[in-house]
């Protein structure tokens, strides 16, 4: 839902697109790596999204089939919604989509042949392996950012239990994500977590 009352200028819309395009090129190790960047810009710096909208955008993108990087489109949707109505939301969705997909897509399409030829080179291997530990750190930072709002022990402890159970199930068993996601959603809908 719209939780803020914004009035973005055209320049700010352009800035939003530009920022997503930047994140597109910074998405080493996958789309999830840029969550801290998106959070910092949208929630902390610009104040265009609330924390709830940020988390909800990610959750919706996960629930829907397809690449999860579309969370950017839902975040854009919420920015537009905060800006006034569903039409702005749709614009925001398009801005998020184009921003997060286009630059890396162009780069990939152009560079794929070259990378294949160069993949054994020390520089390329150093890049790929060098970034890996930092990518792990970024993912854990994303997890921390997303759980940060749930610090009130009385109301939130069940959520943390759910998280731990989900973690163990997804890590140690071969259960498909849906077997964890759907029951969790039911528990949430019933108000048990």
């Amino acid at each position, binding site marked *: 839902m719209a939780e803020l009352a914004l009035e973005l200028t055209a320049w700010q819309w352009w800035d939003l697109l530009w920022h997503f395009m930047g994140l597109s090129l910074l998405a080493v190790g996958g789309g999830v790596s840029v969550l801290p960047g998106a959070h910092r810009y949208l929630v902390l710096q610009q104040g265009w999204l609330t924390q709830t909208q940020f988390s909800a955008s990610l959750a919706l993108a996960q629930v829907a089939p*397809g690449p999860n990087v579309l969370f950017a489109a839902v975040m854009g949707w919420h920015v537009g919604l905060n800006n006034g109505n569903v039409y702005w939301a749709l614009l925001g969705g398009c801005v998020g989509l184009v921003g997060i997909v286009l630059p890396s897509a162009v780069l990939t399409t152009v560079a794929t042949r070259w990378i294949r030829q160069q993949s054994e080179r020390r520089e390329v291997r150093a890049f790929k392996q060098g970034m890996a530990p930092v990518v792990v750190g970024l993912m854990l930072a994303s997890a921390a950012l997303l759980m940060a709002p749930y610090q009130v022990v009385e109301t939130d402890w069940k959520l943390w239990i759910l998280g731990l159970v989900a973690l163990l199930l997804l890590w140690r068993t071969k259960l498909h994500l849906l077997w964890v996601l759907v029951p969790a959603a039911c528990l949430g809908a019933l108000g048990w977590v």
Partner: protein
Amino acid sequence: MSVPQTNEPSPGPKGLADLYWAFTWIALQGFGGVMGVMYRELVERRRWLTNEELLELWSIAQVLPGPNMGNLSLIIGERYFGVRGAIAAGLGLFSVPFVLLMLLALAYTQSAGHPEVMGALRAVGVVVVALIAVTALKLLPALREHPLGFTACLLAIPLTLAAILWLKWPLLVVLAVLGGSYCVLTYRALGRGAAQRS
């Protein structure tokens, strides 16, 4: 006419539309695990690639910035029909899912804060966190073979957490400073390793 269960790879996608619909179909089956679907569809069912080819292309998709599955679809599309193939495959992966997601966002918005919906999404959000954490945990064992050694890699975690959560550095700075340092150190370690072996 063709004998079933042949081990011959098929000639690949018949055209741009074939690419588009193949990747649309892959995307629609992909709940947080598009890779598995890619394997089933492209290697097992359509036989456009062998498993080794898929893994090789995936490792390239990972090196290039951007969403891994998006990159992979572009790489595969490009392989068959060049730039237009990449576009067809990429559009396949993103277009229908985008429309569906916008509809879902609309439905969510219209649900106007019903506690059931909010509660469900809250729980889903926590599962997403678990999924992200698990992805990170699953990447850890591969770091044992890292040129810099496992301990040095583990050190990246508190450093990155501090940079993001405490120093609140922008992502670009984190990648440039921490990522860059690790890349440079890895580069040198790779050189030392090669020198020792020769």
